[in-house]
Structures are given as structure tokens and as C-alpha cells.
């Protein structure tokens, strides 16, 4: 008789830790964080917008590294990691664009500005990884798809430093990093909810990556079974 699978798996522990960290980060950002002098209540969007953006950069960096290792070793595990990280990176970048727009409306008076370099470079970054996912989706498991996707995954990363440094190179609407520009609040009032948000999103990213890679591995097993069934 097979024993019931344990629920205390590393994946489940990470999932519960991510959920708890998200709740703590939410509490610190909404309840504990004081209002900002100019932006009022709206600065609280920073505590979800900035960690989302930084973890989006991380996921795209992991896509690029995993793509590079895949090109070198041709091991499918690295391709699965690159694919999973790109998909989660697109979701995170979507959330960066959406939460940034929601913040911009009350503070700037506009949802979007085509004149702001940070906004436009982030959109370009998002589009380049949409192209990556479209290639994966449309080509399926055709020969060469993983190799072509790996090249796009590496080239797409070039946009990340451009996006990050765009606020220094072409200053317009988007503010500089909050810890550098804030003068009216103690650093800890910003730092604690920010770090809680970072921890929450990193844990969530790890959990999602594990889950997404497991789905991709199951899909590859299913494809292999189908091929075997057709061969019989």
C-alpha cells in the first residue's frame, strides 16, 4: 500500500512562507507606513511597485543566465528554467506597468507618458519577453525552438540595465529611487516595508518558478508518452 504523500514538502513550505510574507508586507505597507508629505496615501503603491520591478529584473536575468547555460549544455532543465522565469517575468512586468500607471494618475495627473524613458523602456522590455513567449507558444516543440528562444532570452536582457538606469540618463517624470530622494521621513519608515515586500516577492517568485517548471516537466513527459503511443 502506498503511503499518502507528505504535505510538508519544500515547495509547500516556500508557498506558505511566501503567503505569510505577502500578508506581513501588506500590513507594514498599508497600516504601519506613514503618509508621505507630497504624495499622501499614494506612496504606499511604492511598496508593491518597486519590489515587483526588482524581482521582474531578477527573473529576466535568470532567464538570460539559464538560456546561456542551455545553449552551452543543451540540458532541458535549463530551458525549462528560462521559459518559466520568462513567463513569470512577463507577469511581474505587467504588474509593474499597471501599478505604475495607477500611481501616476493621482500623482502626475496622467496614467501614462510617452515622454518618460523609464515607462517606455519598461514597455519595450515587456514586449521583448512577450515575443519570447509567443515564439514558445506558436512554435511548440519544433526543432530549434528552445535554441532560438535562448538567444532571444539573452538578447532581451540588454534592455534591463537600460531600463534601470533610464531615470538617471533621461530624467523626466519617473522619480529616482525613493531611498535616495526621500528627505522628510526616517529611512526605517521606508526601508522596513520595502524589505518586507522584497522578501515576499522573492519567496513568491521561487514558489512560482518551482510550480511552473513542474508543469513544463509534466508537459514534456506527456509529449514523450504521446510520441511513444503513436510509435506503437
Amino acid at each position: 500500500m502506498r503511503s499518502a504523500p507528505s504535505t510538508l514538502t519544500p515547495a509547500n513550505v516556500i508557498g506558505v512562507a511566501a503567503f505569510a510574507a505577502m500578508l506581513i508586507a501588506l500590513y507594514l505597507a498599508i497600516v504601519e507606513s506613514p503618509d508621505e508629505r507630497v504624495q499622501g496615501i499614494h506612496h504606499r503603491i511604492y511598496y508593491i511597485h518597486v519590489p515587483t520591478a526588482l524581482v521582474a529584473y531578477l527573473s529576466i536575468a535568470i532567464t538570460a543566465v539559464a538560456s546561456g547555460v542551455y545553449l552551452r549544455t543543451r540540458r532541458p532543465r535549463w530551458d525549462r528554467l528560462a521559459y518559466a522565469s520568462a513567463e513569470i517575468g512577463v507577469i511581474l512586468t505587467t504588474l509593474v506597468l499597471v501599478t505604475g500607471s495607477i500611481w501616476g494618475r493621482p500623482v502626475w495627473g496622467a496614467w501614462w507618458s510617452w515622454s518618460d524613458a523609464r515607462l517606455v523602456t519598461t514597455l519595450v522590455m515587456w514586449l521583448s519577453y512577450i515575443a519570447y513567449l509567443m515564439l514558445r507558444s506558436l512554435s511548440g516543440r519544433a526543432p530549434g525552438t528552445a535554441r532560438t528562444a535562448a538567444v532571444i532570452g539573452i538578447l532581451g536582457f540588454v534592455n534591463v540595465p537600460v531600463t534601470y538606469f533610464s531615470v538617471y540618463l533621461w530624467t523626466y517624470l519617473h522619480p529616482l529611487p525613493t531611498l535616495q530622494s526621500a528627505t522628510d521621513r526616517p529611512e526605517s519608515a521606508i526601508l522596513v516595508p520595502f524589505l518586507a515586500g522584497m522578501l515576499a516577492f522573492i519567496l513568491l517568485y521561487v514558489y512560482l518558478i518551482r510550480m511552473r517548471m513542474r508543469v513544463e516537466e509534466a508537459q514534456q513527459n506527456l509529449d514523450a508518452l504521446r510520441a511513444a503511443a503513436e510509435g506503437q
Partner: protein
Amino acid sequence: MNVDNGFGDFNPLFVFAAYAIVWIIFFGYLYYMARRQADIQSQIDSLQESMPNSNEGAEEDDASQPSE
């Protein structure tokens, strides 16, 4: 930099919307992946039942290159 935006300078609706969208998207994605995993697993199970000797080759093998 604060502007008269017609919504009021301290409207909590924007903060609520930003947090709600993030949570809804993440839970939606988790739900989608759980459903997909269950769907693939049920297809694997039914295929394995129909071909009892086909377990070999279905497991992951890093030496093989199914993507290429």
C-alpha cells in the same frame, strides 16, 4: 508635483486597486497552473493505462533533448 486630478489627493481607491490587482493576478496564475498540472497529470494517467509498458522514456532524462 501634486496635481488637482479630480479624484482627490488622498483617495485610497488607487492604493486599493494597485494591491488588489497584484493579489488577483498572482492567485489567478496559481489557480491556472494548478488546473493545468492536474489536467496534464490526468492525461498522463490515462495514456499510461492504455499502454502499460510505456513508462520508460516518459520520465525526464537530461541526456535526451525533447526541446530540440
